[in-house]
């Protein structure tokens, strides 16, 4: 099974690195990280904060865009090009196909994030502003990309690329707004409304779990177990999303 997943993953990776959008996003990210240096000249103080904020935000934004725009076409493009029939005619389970696709994009994102991070750290090292805790922030951002990739794969199985991208981006927005749902639940008196708010708070993906940009940039304390909890959340929520995608793809009628 692992050999088959591995083969699909490597093929997906090869396909993804030929994608023009990947390079376009990468160039934009590198340009934005570099641009932060020029922007920091306009400020009074806080040069370091601005460079770090822009760098981490660039990695975040362009990583998410890569996950969404490549992720949404992973399954639908194979169906559209009819290459999926050739693949599934071989001794390959449908779930292996989905897991392989996910693994391939995860590898692409790893390379993508590493390139952005190396450039970012290089800029910081040259300016003498490097902080090891930034590595943790980037690692958690990568975890977030993996969860978004899982969601993109699920929507790619369910719908057309355009609709899948809209739904994935909507879930990304919701994932960063969940704290407001928690606030709303706290304001409501006990009842159905509060119960629904609490249920949604735990059911929807909480992407705030992977966001420690502010803490790292401001040098605030970070809980030592934060990365472990985030990894556990990713493993559980991500696998639940992927198994749902597998189940959807198993039932999908391919004509």
């Amino acid at each position, binding site marked *: 099974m692992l050999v088959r997943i591995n083969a699909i993953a490597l093929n997906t990776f090869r396909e993804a690195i030929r994608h023009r959008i990947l390079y376009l996003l990468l160039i934009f990210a590198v340009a934005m990280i570099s641009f932060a240096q020029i922007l920091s000249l306009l400020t009074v103080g806080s040069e370091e*904060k601005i460079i770090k904020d*822009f760098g981490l935000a660039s990695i975040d934004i362009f990583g998410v865009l890569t996950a969404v725009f490549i992720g949404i076409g992973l399954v639908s493009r194979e169906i559209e090009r009819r290459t999926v029939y050739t693949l599934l005619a071989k001794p390959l389970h449908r779930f292996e196909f989905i897991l392989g696709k996910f693994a391939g994009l995860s590898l692409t994102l790893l390379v993508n994030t590493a390139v952005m991070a190396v450039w970012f750290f290089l800029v910081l090292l040259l300016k003498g502003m490097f902080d090891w805790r930034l590595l943790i922030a980037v690692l958690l951002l990568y975890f977030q990309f993996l969860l978004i990739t899982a969601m993109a794969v699920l929507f790619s199985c369910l719908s057309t690329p355009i609709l899948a991208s809209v739904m994935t981006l909507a879930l*990304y927005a919701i994932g960063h*707004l969940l704290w407001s749902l928690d606030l709303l639940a706290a304001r409501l008196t006990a009842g159905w409304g509060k119960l629904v708010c609490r249920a949604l708070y735990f059911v929807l993906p909480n992407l705030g779990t992977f966001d420690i940009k502010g803490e790292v940039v*401001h040098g605030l304390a970070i809980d030592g177990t934060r990365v472990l909890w985030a990894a556990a959340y990713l493993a559980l929520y991500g696998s639940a999303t992927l198994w749902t995608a597998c189940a959807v793809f198993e039932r999908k009628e391919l004509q």
Partner: protein
Amino acid sequence: MAARAAVRDPRRRMALCAATGLLLAAVVQGRLEGSRGSNALHPLLYLPSGKYLRVMSLGFEELAADVLYLWSIQYYGNYDIKDRYGYLQHIYGQVITELDPHYLDPYLVGAMIMAVEARQPEMALRLLDKGVENNPDKWIMAFEAGFLCYNDLHDYRRAAYYFKKAIEVPGAHPLVRRLYAEMHNRAGDKRTSLREWSEIYRTSDDPYVRNVAWNHVHDLKVDVDVADLQDMVSRFRDRAGRAPRRLRDLVAGGVAGALPADPEGREYLYDPRTGDVRYRGGLVLGR
């Protein structure tokens, strides 16, 4: 010839049209900027509160705060805009610092613009109060508030209140303690000032600081001792119906337990005719 060839080629013609369109758009934009005038209010001034912007920023609150702070520096630094201080409280107090409560520069720079440029020190203090509340581990916020009260408002008691807050934060600059001690002196509380300067003298390892502290301790001790002795003379007069002939009479008359010596270990001078107590040396700081 080359120009004619370029016009005949359809692709070049299209590129030429696009370039012309862009150029004209830039000219129109320039005219728009000109017609708007430098006194027109910037649209960013109408931003909603940072509480709502936090929701809209989708996890990029710090980046949004950076962008708005950068804009505010350019906007408030533009002396061509005459009435640019109308929304200071909103931009710094309710937008930028709500988006990123741990971002120190907007508090410090915002307070400086409010106090120095807009002449609104109370507004600046409100912003710094918020900074102290959101960043209790940063002494600089309370220090800036204290310095504003000292330098601009000449409200030394309030300055002492803020400097005390600053020195309670671990890692506060030693200068804050000196300012705290001095504020009590300026507020007329020489005893507390003497106690604080004595403590600085006792605990500092820096010879320069010890020298400065000693000068303050010297003069304050003289002031406090003279005031105490003068008070004892008055009490003696009330009790005995006459002024003491010499200072030792204060001890004999039960008004004082012991007489304070001056910083050099000598007795203070006393004039029985006027009842005045004086220091026989000169003050170091000459205040």
